[in-house]
């Protein structure tokens, strides 16, 4: 979807909520994967995704999209809402972190030993990732989902330079945590 198409869709959806559907289908994967990556629970992520779009549709008539290069600011606005919904959920249920990425291990080619090793490594990675700050997790996750430094900065309310240094420090911290874990085992 190019920026002008998106602007037209936004303008239509601002007048008629049902016209939001193409925007919804375009962005639901992005929002869902962000919510799942942060909440690590499919039920919570499903609710957070729904809530994000409900809030977006509710606020859309007052939203003023802008062009930025070959994109609009809609994606970062939507992800800002998603982040607030996720943070709200994490505040309400700080212990409700249930890892749910079991689908990733479902490889028909892996034997029992490989599966066990992969599961151990995956647990180490996820544990280390969860020990990063909220901001560090957000920067890594949003970058992996293809958002630019400028967009991530907008979502988190920090400069593009701060996004890059946060990303760098997050990776260094991940490496330290994994090394510590490796030395312990």
């Amino acid at each position, binding site marked *: 979807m190019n920026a002008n198409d998106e602007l037209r869709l936004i303008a239509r959806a601002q007048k008629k909520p049902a016209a939001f*559907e193409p925007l919804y289908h375009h962005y639901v994967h992005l929002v869902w994967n962000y919510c799942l990556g942060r909440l690590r629970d499919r039920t919570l992520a499903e609710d957070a995704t729904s809530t994000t779009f*409900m809030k977006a549709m509710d606020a859309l008539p007052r939203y003023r999209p802008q062009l930025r290069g070959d994109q609009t600011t809609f994606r970062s606005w939507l992800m800002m809402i998603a982040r607030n919904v996720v943070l709200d959920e994490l505040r309400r249920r700080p212990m409700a972190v249930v890892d749910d990425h079991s689908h990733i291990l479902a490889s028909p080619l892996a034997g029992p030993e490989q599966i066990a090793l992969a599961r151990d490594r995956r647990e180490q990675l996820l544990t280390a990732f969860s020990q990063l700050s909220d901001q560090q997790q957000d920067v890594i996750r949003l970058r992996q989902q293809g958002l630019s430094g400028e967009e991530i900065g907008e979502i988190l309310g920090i400069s593009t330079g701060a996004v890059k240094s946060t990303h760098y420090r997050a990776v260094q911290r991940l490496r330290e945590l994994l090394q510590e874990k490796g030395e312990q085992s």
Partner: protein
Amino acid sequence: MTDTESSSLFEYALSDRSPVNEDEEILMELHSTLGMSRPPATLLRFPPPNASQTGNGSSMPLLPPR
């Protein structure tokens, strides 16, 4: 940390280059671990289900318009 180091690692995050150092390998491994998954069927229909129907509605106020 130099700007060049942080920038190159950041730009690597979604590039398709082979990893050239340990940090990039960790990022690549984390990317495949966190993965991307298809939303559940309930989210593939529009409008999405109301989260309050499952009792998990968020209390976060709406963002101010930009």
